[in-house]
């Protein structure tokens, strides 16, 4: 599913509501069959582990090596001692390498993340998601810092990841063509309200272009 809309329309807020980082001020949210605000402690963490989010690579810690930033996707299932030990001796390197291979960064696995370019960091964020293996994938502008070829591949990866686990991909996208190619459903937001909800097959690039102009 693609989320489209001018900036400030509420796309990121909607994604935040779903992954639980923004509490609802009114109404309820249902994620994978449960209300995230009703859960506490262990159960809340288990639900969160099933929802993966990728932001615009701003969630990475620059001082950590790439391998640790990718491994952070597994922190929900790792006990604290293993998380601590992994910072000394990286754990589960084969899975990390496989994930990085998927985004074409396997040769930078032990690089400090702050040495990577914006596009490379965005791919590290994708690799973290691959390691987390969530059922529901939320993506906030996953293609913004990538060139067209990489953007294409990143979205295919995300969609494939969600499909593997029988879940869905919700991505906010700036490129209407990408949205139509990779998503089956398009939802348009303007000033926090849904103004469009249609199957992608029924839309053209021209229909969506309006959403990226001035707000109506």
């Amino acid at each position, binding site marked *: 599913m693609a989320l489209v809309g001018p900036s400030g329309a509420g796309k990121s807020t909607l994604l935040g509501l779903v*992954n*639980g*980082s923004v509490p609802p001020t009114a109404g309820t949210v249902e994620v994978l069959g449960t209300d995230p605000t009703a859960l506490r402690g262990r159960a*809340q*963490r*288990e*639900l*969160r*582990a*099933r*929802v*993966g*989010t990728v*932001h615009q690579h*701003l*969630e*990475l*810690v*620059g*001082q*950590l090596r790439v*391998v*640790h*930033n990718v491994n*952070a*996707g597994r*922190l*929900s299932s*790792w006990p*604290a001692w293993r*998380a*601590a030990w992994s*910072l000394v001796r*990286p754990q589960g*390197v084969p899975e990390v*390498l496989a994930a990085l*291979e998927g*985004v*074409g960064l*396997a*040769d*930078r*696995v*032990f690089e400090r993340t702050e040495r990577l370019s914006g596009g490379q960091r965005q791919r590290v964020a994708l690799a973290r998601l691959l390691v*987390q293996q*969530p059922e529901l994938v939320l993506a906030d502008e996953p293609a913004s810092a990538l060139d067209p*070829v*990489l953007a294409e*591949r990143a979205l295919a990866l995300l969609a494939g990841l969600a499909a593997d686990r029988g879940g869905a991909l919700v991505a906010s996208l700036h490129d209407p063509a990408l949205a139509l190619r990779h998503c089956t459903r398009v939802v348009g937001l303007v000033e926090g309200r849904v103004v469009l909800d249609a199957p992608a097959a029924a839309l053209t690039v021209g229909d969506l272009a309006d959403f990226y102009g001035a707000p109506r």
Partner: protein
Amino acid sequence: MTAVLDRPQAPPRLQRVRTRWAWGLGALAVLGWSLAGAGAFAGDVVNPAGAGQFGRFASAALSPALDGEFLRVLTDSVLVTVAYATLGAALAVLLGAVGAVAVARTTWGRRRLGWTLSRGALAVPRGLHEAVWGLLLVNLLGLDPWVGVLAIGVPYGAVTAKVFADLLDEVPRGGYEALLAGGVGRVPAALYGLLPPASGGLLSYSFYRLECAVRSAVVLGLIGAGGLGYQLLLSFSSLRWEQVWSCVYALALLCLLADVGGRAVRRRVAAPRSSGDRLRRDPALTTAVLGTLAAVAWSWWYLAISPATLVADRTGEQLRYVLTAAWPPDVDAPLLSAVAVAAVDTVQMSVIAIAVATAGAVLLAGVAARPARASAGRRLAGTVVRLALLLLRAVPPPVWALVLLFVLLPGILPGALALGVYTLGVLGRLAAEATEELDPRPRAALTALGAGPVGGWLYAVLPAATGPVLAFALYRWEVAIRDTVLVGLLGAGGLGALLASRVAAFDWGAVTTVLVALVLLTAAVDLVSARARAALRS
């Protein structure tokens, strides 16, 4: 991307950054050596018999002495401390302003030798703790209020001169050079082109020095200059714990006021109000400057300072006598080996202190930081920890050493731990502020994917906060080595204890040797710390 994928290659190997590992392992080795030297592994460091006394001391915290007579004494002590701090800081700013001209790059231009020599000359007054200056000056001037003022003013003046000069040198040169090119003389050009852009920084730093001077005035009280420190020691040695706690609370309040006032002035300087078309001065800053000037006049009157002491015949005679006795320095073998042993003790004390403080600061930083959103319980915990840190840094390290001597056997360990506890108060606050400034998004992202609190802290907060906290810790190590001397002066061992005993014996030749060792040691520590911080940044 496909090109990268198609080429099979061996996975890269994990490579550690060599220099950082070398520094890390070296630091661990030095810490182990220091702990061994302090007897931490030799057993028998705890004195169980003192637990009762410690309990009585601790329980008096809830019932400080509040009777009218003691409160009057306490008020007088606070006023004396404030007067010393104000005059000391004023003298420091005055000396700093004159000294800054003498050591600024701008003055020397391309004459590097003169610049290097003038900078080097500052290292001597800077390398000696205020208490050391106090001890030396008391022998020159006798028990005169000038001792306290000069003991703060001289070392602070040297630091201020260096900082003022750096601030002036860092000003963009364009305006100044344009004035010079227009035929304006060097002094008016500096007044119009250098001073205005630097004035905010100069003012901020002057008020920061005033805050520091309050702490130093208390410390000087401990070695007999009067005021709050003196009263604290008096109550302590007569075992009046309720009075001790009253002094501690007064100290904490004074430090808090200096802190809050200084921060308010610095915030105003950093974000000035717009003035519009009329000539208008910021009322808060004007009040602060005028108030400080009035406080200087009042302090002068309250301490009954007279310039006559400085030019009295007796002072001149005493100075001549001490100088002739102090040169040449003693270099006989027993003294030199005593200095070496004491220097090792001093280094070990400072290393243990900074290790204790850093470990504590890292653990407490998360709780002490003010989060953007927090529950009531979390907020309460934060306030309690911040108050505790304030109390830790309000009490001077020698007093902590006396408290620790209830439960620890004498040696360098109580002194080291006392210094560690005090430094924790300072470092904890710096670490909390560093944590507050971190980007919250990585942590939020980890929480959103289901990471627990420990995992989130390890992967988002720790790696980002390590750099700044370690840099602060190394900087505080430079301060700690100076403070070790202070703890030593009051008996905890090291170079300070050696210095105190030599001064008491009027053995001026040996005093010179110890002072030289002290200056060299602080310079060496500054150098190592600067190198380590550079390795951290790379």
